């Protein structure tokens, strides 16, 4: 079992003069499923981007600690899986090409068995040689889960994970989230009641300032 910890200290984020959130502190020490909820514009996506290292906070810091050592920012991408509606895969490549390319660019060994397993559970194995541009929006969403999980990340961040998915798709996503929650930290940013029901602890972002810790 890996000892992976996320520590956020005094996080503030402003866009120009607009304060999105301030004084946010939290620490996730254990494997499990954590939720981030709040009204539209409360900064859920901004917060998950900051946690993933894709955006800098205006003040404060987020530390990712593995076995007592902080993971340097330039290596963070290898420990994180990220799914969001605004994530776009390369449409001129097939699903299989996308996944092999990502492994090579990451510099990790392409795990064929793990990839085939994920393609099967997300019902995309038969379409793995089709170009992404030929996929429906639901299939693209399922493909993003494979992209996020193919390198077995320690932190799986899911921003609105069930958008564009039908009931069957949602069912398989919830099943996967439960499985992953036993092996890594899963964070779900969503307003969907059924998404948040999967979470043991929640951070509720207030209307725009000073965030109370939920859970």
């Amino acid at each position, binding site marked *: 079992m890996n000892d992976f910890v996320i520590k956020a200290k005094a996080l503030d984020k402003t866009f120009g003069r607009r304060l999105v959130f301030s004084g946010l502190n939290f620490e996730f020490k254990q494997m499990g499923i954590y939720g981030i909820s709040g009204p539209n514009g409360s900064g859920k996506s901004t917060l998950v*981007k900051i946690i*993933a290292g*894709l*955006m*800098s906070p205006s003040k404060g810091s987020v530390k990712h600690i593995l076995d007592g050592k902080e993971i340097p920012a*330039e*290596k963070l*991408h290898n420990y*994180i899986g*990220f799914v*969001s509606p*605004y*994530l*776009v*895969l*390369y*449409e*001129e*490549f097939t699903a299989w090409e996308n996944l092999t*390319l*990502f492994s*090579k*660019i*990451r*510099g990790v060994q392409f795990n064929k068995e793990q990839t085939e397993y994920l393609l099967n559970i997300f019902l995309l194995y038969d379409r793995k040689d089709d170009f992404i541009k030929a996929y429906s929006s639901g299939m693209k969403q399922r493909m993003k889960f494979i*992209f996020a999980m193919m390198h077995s990340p320690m932190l799986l961040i899911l921003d609105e994970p069930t958008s564009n998915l039908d009931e069957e798709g949602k069912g398989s996503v919830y099943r996967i989230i439960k499985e992953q929650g036993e092996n890594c930290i899963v964070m779900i940013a969503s307003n969907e009641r059924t998404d948040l029901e999967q979470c043991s602890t929640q951070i509720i972002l207030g209307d725009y300032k000073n965030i109370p810790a939920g859970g």
Partner: protein
Amino acid sequence: MNKAYSLFLKDFRSELRTRYAVNSLAMFIIVAISVILFSIGNERINENLTAGLFWVVIFFTAMSGLARVFVSEEERGTSLTLQLVASPSTVFSGKLIFNLVLVFCMNTIIAVLYAALFDEFVIRNFALFFCTFILGNIGLAIASTIIAAIISKAGAKGTLYPVLSFPILLPLILTSVQLTLFSIDGTGFEKSKFELAVVICYDVIMLTASYMLFDFIWKD
């Protein structure tokens, strides 16, 4: 370096399928050289003008295609995906390799067309021209890549690229024009030492500054 090479291969295969940059570069080379040929007509142009026009075509061709490495990622929305699979230094190295290959292919074609179509473009010191060509192309690729990364985050990308590139590339272009002139009139390496040193320094400074800056440019 393997990761950067894999990113280059991704861009190369993507370019083969989408022809995002190659078509505009090829069209620009053909159009620019044709316009110069038509406007010159039967006039003889001097060596100064020949060397200048050679680098004018190179500069504007670079402006028409080299920004695509980052602009295409931003326009398609795949920048975030790239941030999730690679470190900033890998991204910059991969994009730089792609632009280096593109610049060398593009400028080789321009040089061959120039040699075939312009009687005045006769290189008397080929070794010097070769050094200028290599060093100038490296500087052009580095500067174009980092400027492309900057403008890809901006609104008016198309207009901003040549405007921002001009002052940054000016020392390189002016020195390269001088060195090309030296290679046309057969000046030796001894007299070209200063200009060669300027181009080498430019390349080293641009490369160092680009790697230092890219982290801040790449992250929102």
